[in-house]
């Protein structure tokens, strides 16, 4: 499937910025199951400082906010060819040691509420794939999808205690629980084309777990499925902090308001 993506991130600052930096992980790579046909990033109110691959092999862009601006716009457009591998990505690549995906972070570390969810599992470690699918379903059952109830800094445990959350929270709970069960897991940020619309709500997030036989396997907890050809992986990391599309720091900027406009549509005609 060919997906045409148009993703605009807007920052509005209440006061003009003296100096600011933003670390962007907004460039998908051609990896298992996806091939980037074209991609470009256009900046307004900001300029490119440097680009590199980070420790998770994400294409990372550092931009600085121009002094005096009160609006920054980052516009990504491109086309990605995808295939349906039933969420299976295969063997681990890169130099990050597997144990790094077993270590908990402040965002994933389970407390009593996440442990309680894991305790409801009936599937055992002898059938890990079934266990993880069940875990995914349990997380969604216990933590209803509810936009606006949590923030980017909310931990999995906090969202589980609230019983509400978005895809980021679902992923953190799943990752924390999987790791506590001895299964390496990581966070994925990317795009999902919802079938019934072109304008999507926001960037999407899901989780991947590593199994001995299959390698990395994706789990979209919020939608209760494994990613298929409607998904584009953009960045991965041990938690949201490492895979976040935008991480920023600014001085003299007052409050900032972030808006995201995202359109993902299937390109039918071959061009």
């Amino acid at each position: 499937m060919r997906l045409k993506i148009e993703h605009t991130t807007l920052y509005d600052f209440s006061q003009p910025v003296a100096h600011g930096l933003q670390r962007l992980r907004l460039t998908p790579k051609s990896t298992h199951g996806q091939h980037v046909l074209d991609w470009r990033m256009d900046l307004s109110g900001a300029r490119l400082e440097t680009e590199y691959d980070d420790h998770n092999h994400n294409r990372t862009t550092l931009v600085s906010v121009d002094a005096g601006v009160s609006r920054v716009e980052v516009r990504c457009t491109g086309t990605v060819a995808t295939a349906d591998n039933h969420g299976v990505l295969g063997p681990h690549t890169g130099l990050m040691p597997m144990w790094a995906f077993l270590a908990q972070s402040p965002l994933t570390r389970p407390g009593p509420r996440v442990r309680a969810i894991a305790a409801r599992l009936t599937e055992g470690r002898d059938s890990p794939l079934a266990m993880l699918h069940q875990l995914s379903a349990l997380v969604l059952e216990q933590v209803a999808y509810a936009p606006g109830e949590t923030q980017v800094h909310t931990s999995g445990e906090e969202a589980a205690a609230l019983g509400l959350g978005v895809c980021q929270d679902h992923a953190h709970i799943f990752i924390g629980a999987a790791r506590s069960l001895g299964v390496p897991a990581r966070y994925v940020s990317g795009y999902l084309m919802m079938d019934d619309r072109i304008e999507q709500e926001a960037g999407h997030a899901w989780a991947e777990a590593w199994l001995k036989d299959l390698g990395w396997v994706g789990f979209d907890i919020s939608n209760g499925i494994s990613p298929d050809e409607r998904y584009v992986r953009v960045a991965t990391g041990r938690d949201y902090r490492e895979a976040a599309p935008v991480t920023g720091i600014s001085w003299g900027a007052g409050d900032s308001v972030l808006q995201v406009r995202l359109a993902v549509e299937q390109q039918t005609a071959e061009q």
Partner: protein
Amino acid sequence: MTHSPSSFDEMLEPDGSVRPAYAGYREWYDAQDPAALRRKGSEAEGFFRKTGITFNVYGDDAGEERLIPFDMVPRIVTAREWRRLSRGIEQRVRALNAFLHDIYHRQEIVRAGRVPQRLIAENAAFLPEMVGMVPPGGVFTHIVGIDLVRTGPDEFMVLEDNARTPSGVSYMLENRETMMAMFPELFTRVNVRPVQDYPRRLAKSLAACAPAMAGERPVVAVLTPGIYNSAYFEHAFLADQMGAELVEGSDLRVVDGRVAMRTTRGYEAIDVLYRRVDDEFLDPLTFNPASVLGVPGIMDVYRAGGITIANAPGTGIADDKAIYSFMPEIVEFYTGEKPILSNVPTWRCSEADSLGFVLDNLADLVVKEVHGSGGYGMLIGPTSSKKEIAAFAAKLRARPENYIAQPTLALSTVPILTKAGLAPRHVDLRPFVLVSPNGIDITPGGLTRVALKQGSLVVNSSQGGGTKDRGCWRIDARRSHMLGRTANGVFWMARYLERAENTARLLDAGFRMAMTRDYLTSEAEWRSLIETVGMTHAYEAAHSSYTGVQVWNFMLRDKANPGNVLAMIEAARTNARAVRTALTREVWEAVNESWMLLKEAMARPVREASLGEVLSTVRRQMTLVRGAMEGSMLRNEIHNFTRLGTFIERGDSTARILDVKYYVLLPSLAWVGSSLDNVQWESVLRSVAGERSYRWLNAGSMDARGIADFLLLDQRFPRSLAFCIDKLRSNLRGLAHEYGHETSAHEKLRALGTRFHEATIESVFEGGLHEFIQEYIACNRRVALAIEQDYRFYA
């Protein structure tokens, strides 16, 4: 001289004869007068204090500085001993770098089962952000300190590796400097290899590690957390000696994909950053978001290959004591050779057998935390009580993997000078090792630390022998432009010094005036003094009347007055410390000594009998600082900014003194020739140190017009407004010449200059003396602000 029989003494054989290494020294020592030696010892201490070779202690009051104890007996290592040590150190350092590279790449050593994965995975010093990173030049740990202990003639062992941030090298260098200054004849007798070129070698070694994009002469900078850091002296010392810029986080930002420092001419890229800021605080965008000591985005620039960070982030993992216990395996794995230097035998408490042994023998062992450093959280069995041992055993059982244990070693002793003559003390030795793509360079010497509590820090010397010349250094570091913060620092140092002096002169004049008055009018004099310095509100909040002793103490040392003279001197010294690398040693020592003297002189409230002496000490010290500047500083931008600070402040001060007293100069109000006026006028002149000059120029005749003309418009008098403007003009011209262009400060000063050029004393009185002074004060301030902005003092 006695020594404990169990330890190897580096000077004396068991039979009391002198070992060959120390023969030359001992011969010299025996010929010295013991009293003279002791006197030199206290001289050295005074010298260290004046130079500012101090360290701060964590947990003490911020800014409290302490001296490093210094001993005058050198540590002597023979050339033969040193050769073997060097080979061992080089091998170990090569292995450490290979290990660090491996740990952040394929972790072959873990895959091979030689080092347990757990030690890496559970180590907080492991930084995932470094995975896959190849630092420029392939070097992870650019500066390594290997701590060695000795237990016999040929038995050297490694006690600890310092791959993260080995410190102390400046003490080694300063101690050597001090020894050479005090005992030059000793160095002609004992043939000692020099360590003094360490900073130059460090600069070259760092420059050789610059990223590919750097020019032929890379820019090296030292990143310090600032003047309150315990090792600030060392940071400033090394930057100064290397000719590198000493930068703080606030000087740096990412510009055009590089890490750049704010100089007076704009942002300038840094190629190699020798950082003395911990990993955690290095980049708030990556690590601790609350850090203000680092540079946001530096890790991005680093991963993109735009800067060399020395040492690389994440090298601390090699300092872990559990990793240390695997160093023999690590050396063998990466070099394929048997380790030349052995470890101190170490039991890993994570292993059940070892734990059992350690628990059974706690009274004889030293137990250390694996991540600990600085001697915290450890147990020294032989000197601990049963209760302490029991308590430690409980901690050990709860978290065995957190500890290693070592035998209590009979460390070698070397002599130190005590009241009773030479006495042996246990020591270790930390040589400093530089790593670059050009090779491994070991400083022939090191830091000797004395292990006893009352012990001292002495410098080691090594003797004779051929230098192993590495000879492939070609790359030199390049001097960068002056930091905006540095310009700010010298500018304000000068302003505070000037302000302190002016306040002292003002007080002196007030004091003389008050002595000639009755109680009531003298109270008015004292009040006008407080008014001149603009502190009426603060004074009246603290005191209900104006008496001399209250006023002068308020102006000299009262904490209720943030602008007191002592605070000004301290502020000048703080600025001088922060820009230490921009000052000559003479200037820094003059400022530091002024602060020490005046702090002492004003430790208690100043009584009337000692006021004159205190005030003249202030004047004398400030004259000394000026002399040091005049005689030792290059006539470059640093000098220009210093002078600009002086004359902005001086002009402001003269103008304020005149403004408070302007009515006594108005001709219409003057009782010409009355004794009261004469006293008033003389007081005004005295407060700007102008009474003699004025008399000399005017042959003793005094009148209001003449005095006003003298203080405002006479270009010959160094405290007149016209003189200050003239100096500002020549120093700003100097900057324009050096920078190749003028700024808005030049424009603003030109406007002020024109106003003065056209003024005559008649036109001043016509337009109003008060108005004229007020206008000057405002213009002078605008010039100062323009200088701060144009030359990027703050942003």
